[in-house]
């Protein structure tokens, strides 16, 4: 469904993505797991076509089409969308309107209500609420996820969907993501918390602008916990060897610095 080949992004002279190669298959939950600063969010912005995140090299193909030079709107119309880590707030825009933005039939109120219920927000209370600063961080995050559910994209990139949400709600969020999958969306999940990856079909470890390893959730979560978290590589950006690519079994140890 999504193929990323040789993706390179440099911002203000700093290499952020250093040759990303990755494939996301239709119907899967594919998680990108990496410590802060690995380049996960930059990859998400690149995939969505965000301003300032046009790659200098590499190609992105979605459903067989090269989307590298397409606008955000064009990508979204093809069925690709992104839930930002820090969701934007909109003065005066009601949740009911916000949720229906991505729907083909904006008058389908049942779908909007269903989406709010899935993220455990009472439609009676929230349909008429503005998506502004009066919402708590957790409520805003849930509304963001509800808007993705209502849109029913072919591929949803969820950038740290758990940020701003307390531990008790983590299970709720995981259930929401599973529901999205059930409703037909492929999920590209970005996180720095290994427990989030538990619902994945495949997990890719990302470090220092590179995908270093892809495999089954249990193995990759254990690897991340054991090797990536304690590894200081991410504190020295650009030091990880390029060419450390998908399915490489090399351990990221101090010797690589």
């Amino acid at each position, binding site marked *: 469904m999504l193929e990323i080949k040789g993706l390179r992004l440099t911002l203000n002279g700093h290499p952020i993505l250093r040759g990303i190669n990755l494939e996301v298959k239709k119907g899967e939950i594919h998680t990108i797991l990496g410590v802060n600063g690995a380049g996960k969010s930059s990859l998400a912005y690149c995939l*969505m076509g*965000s*301003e300032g995140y046009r790659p200098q090299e590499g190609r992105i193909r979605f459903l067989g089409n090269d989307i590298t030079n397409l*606008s*955000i*709107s064009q*990508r*979204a*119309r093809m069925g690709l*969308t*992104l839930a*930002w880590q*820090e*969701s*934007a*707030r*909109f*003065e*005066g*825009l009601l949740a009911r*309107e916000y949720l229906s*933005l*991505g729907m083909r039939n904006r008058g389908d109120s049942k779908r909007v209500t269903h989406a709010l219920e899935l993220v455990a927000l009472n439609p009676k209370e929230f349909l008429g609420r*503005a998506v502004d600063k009066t919402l708590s961080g957790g409520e805003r995050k849930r509304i963001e996820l509800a*808007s993705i559910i209502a*849109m029913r994209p072919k591929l949803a990139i969820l950038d740290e969907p758990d940020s701003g949400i307390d531990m008790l709600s983590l299970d709720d969020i995981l259930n929401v993501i599973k529901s999205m999958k059930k409703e037909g969306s492929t999920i590209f999940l970005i996180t720095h918390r290994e427990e989030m990856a538990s619902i994945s079909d495949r997990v890719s470890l990302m470090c220092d602008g590179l995908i270093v390893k892809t495999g089954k959730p249990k193995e990759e979560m254990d690897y991340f916990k054991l090797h990536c978290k304690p590894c200081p590589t991410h504190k020295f950006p650009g030091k990880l060897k390029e060419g450390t690519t998908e399915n490489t079994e090399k351990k990221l140890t101090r010797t690589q610095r």
Partner: protein
Amino acid sequence: MSDYESMVRAYRKAGGDPRVLRDPKCAFLVVNKNKILGKKKIEGIKVFRAEELPKGVKITLITQKGYRIEKPVYLCFGILPKRGLQEIYVDVKIADGSSITLIAHCTFPNAVKIKHIMSAEFRIGKGAFLGYHETHYHGESGGAEVIPQGKIYIDKGGRLDTSFTLIKGKVGKLRIDYEARAKEKAVAELVVKVYGKGDDDIRIKEKAILDGPYAKSLIKARVAVKDRAKTMAIGITEGNAPFCRGHVDCIEIVQGKAQAKALPIVQVIDDRARVTHEAAIGSIDKKQLETVMARGLSKEEAIDVVVKGMLR
């Protein structure tokens, strides 16, 4: 079609609901240029007088002490021809403990060279409430010049809640000048929302003078301008008494070759008063825009969603 029917049609264009003009529980006044086309008074209003003048009308409204009028009073002012002058003089007294909401629609649907001047004085009694909400429609040619001026005096514990909205069609030339003076524990909230296009020229001046202890005010301006439109928003708050609180909040969105200026002026002469301000001018927030575009809307559609939300 009679002038009244034409005005009702124009009233609808300005966002008004003509059904309220047939509601027996609602007071209303309909004025075309200097002609009074319809007027109704209801219980709780002591005086509701409208006089025709050579160039406009003079309106006097006084509420009964302690009477809370539930349904709003609807005011419809307009000029139907392409050219003309209308001067509206408003004298409103909200008696102690009474409450009223005035909803005014000013409509100049065919404006080519129209001038509308409103000079208002509102006196809000002790513990009284005045809601005054004005919605304008100036047509599509930009040929209107509109000058609303208001002086508002709020007595102890009184409350003012006022808004001015002009987001459909062209603005033309707009000069808003409102000043509210609040006594002890009085509250004043002044909100202006305008969308300027073409060569519109917008100047907004809102002033709150907090003369009484614990008086509060909020001055809020939301302006979006595009094409070659210009805007200047001046928000002034004076904190002259202990424990008074005031805030000036201005957001202006600029698109194309439009220009925007914001000038918040805050002044405090009592060290126990607190007056704050925030002003933001610029293009639409990138994240807001991209979030909406990521739902499949074009950039232009996304701008429209964000701007209309802000101006709601």
